[in-house]
């Protein structure tokens, strides 16, 4: 794997393989020394041109666990706020010898541009580009679901016929998009639920079912309910009348949560708006995977950095028996 730009087009075997590598990374958490020497001498740049705390520190923790050097580069306080272009920033990073660039950018497609530009010869990992994709979030979600379902026996498994409902602002959600492609590639059945104003145009062409009402979606008894964040920063039009109405119609409140079967997983990519899309009781319950998602995020990002950086450049990954 040279770059990780999107989950669209990833094959099932490829994803299962990546999740298996992440299982190995998760084992490192339980050891006496929680660090691997694998990426010693490699440099990972976290280029975050849009605000983010958890994704950045997750990538930072992942790179450090693999002994890579980490340079954090945020828009605020950098030359980017003086109007430096992505091209100039990339060339500066290339001159510093960056081996991988983890890019968060407000424009959809920015990671793709960086990877194909020739401005920099580094592995590019998309950490969220506009409303396009956030592949590592989808990978950690799939990893979390697989671990909850299969525990220590998870290696080698996909998500065949697991029912997953993704609820909320699908229109602006790169998490939802990455999850649709990834989860369906793994064999899961995905159902999107949102007010009509927050479903993207063209959703009919996606490999999903859609519901306009949360109660209809929950009536299908999904194995997983993934609540999306209402992104106040992107609420630039009247998508729904009031926050209270949204919470009443599309929020996972105490009453709806109480009616879910006990085994149903409740997921949220964070940060949560408690009382809006998810009630505090649902968020803090045993059904909630929110904290597992954070912990698993580090394992997934370690796996992605390992696969992008450890091998000899430009050669296809070896899936042969050695180490299999």
């Amino acid at each position, binding site marked *: 794997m040279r770059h990780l730009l999107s989950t669209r087009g990833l094959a099932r075997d490829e994803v299962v393989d990546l999740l298996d590598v992440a299982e*190995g990374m998760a084992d490192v958490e339980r050891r*006496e020394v929680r660090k*691997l020497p694998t990426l010693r001498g490699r440099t990972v740049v976290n280029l975050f041109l849009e605000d983010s705390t958890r994704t950045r520190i997750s990538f930072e923790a992942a790179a450090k666990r693999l002994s890579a050097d980490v340079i954090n580069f945020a828009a605020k306080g950098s030359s980017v706020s003086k109007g430096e272009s992505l091209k100039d920033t990339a060339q500066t990073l290339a001159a510093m010898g960056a081996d991988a660039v983890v890019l968060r950018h407000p424009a959809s497609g920015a990671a793709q541009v960086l990877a194909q530009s020739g401005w920099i010869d580094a592995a590019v990992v998309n950490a969220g580009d506009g409303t396009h994709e956030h592949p590592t979030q989808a990978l950690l979600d799939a990893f979390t679901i697989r671990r909850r379902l299969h525990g220590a026996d998870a290696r080698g498994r996909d998500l065949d016929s697991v029912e997953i409902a993704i609820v909320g602002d699908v229109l602006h959600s790169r998490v939802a998009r990455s999850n649709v492609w990834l989860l369906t590639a793994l064999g899961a059945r995905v159902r999107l639920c949102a007010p009509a104003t927050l479903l993207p145009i063209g959703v009919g062409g996606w490999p999903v079912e859609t519901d306009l009402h949360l109660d209809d979606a929950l009536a299908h008894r999904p194995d997983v309910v993934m609540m999306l964040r209402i992104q106040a920063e992107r609420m630039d039009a009247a998508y729904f009348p009031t926050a209270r109405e949204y919470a009443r119609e599309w929020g996972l409140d105490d009453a709806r949560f109480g009616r879910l079967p006990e085994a149903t997983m409740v997921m949220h990519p964070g940060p949560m708006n408690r009382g809006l899309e998810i009630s505090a009781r649902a968020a803090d319950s045993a059904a909630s995977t929110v904290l597992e998602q954070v912990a698993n995020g580090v394992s997934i990002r370690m796996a992605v950095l390992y696969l992008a950086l450890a*091998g000899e450049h430009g*050669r296809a990954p*070896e899936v042969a028996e050695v180490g299999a």
Partner: protein
Amino acid sequence: MIRTVLEPADIDRALTRIAHEILESNRGAEGLVLLGIPTRGVTLAGRLADHVSRFSGAHVTFGSLDVTMYRDDLARQPTRRPAPTRIPDGGVDGRCVVLVDDVLFSGRTVRAALDALVDQGRPSVVRLAVLVDRGHRELPIRADFVGKNLPSALSESIRVRLVDHDGVDGVTIESSASGTGPTGTAADGAGAEGTGA
């Protein structure tokens, strides 16, 4: 040209002898942990653990220790897929750990295994058991228990087959002059040590 060096009975005899030698050097089964290096080392560790348990009457545990993340040639090879590491309950602290692999060659795999092991804890003693020692060491490493010393030319490849992976037990030596190229043989045979150098 392919020549068989160890038949199934030879492999079993070698493992039986190694099991006795391990018990002898450790003065019993107390505190023994066998850790195999994936893939075939783990199978061998399991067989050794059976023998040692039977001879000593004590239950001796075995596990696997993946060394992928500790290799010194990661940047020179296509990306390797790490295998699971499974440390038996009780860990390795203060134990006598016997590392088990199929072929000892350059010694680089064992070097990586030693690094991987100290990140798991602090064993009191670490020993090395291998089914075949083919020579050509590149590091100051030697095995404590050897099934068969097999002086070989660098152009030859040693292939260890075990029932669990290959349907049959056996060790063959193959000169690269024969039809299959050295890389082809190494990729599906001889284990990581054979391909390392």
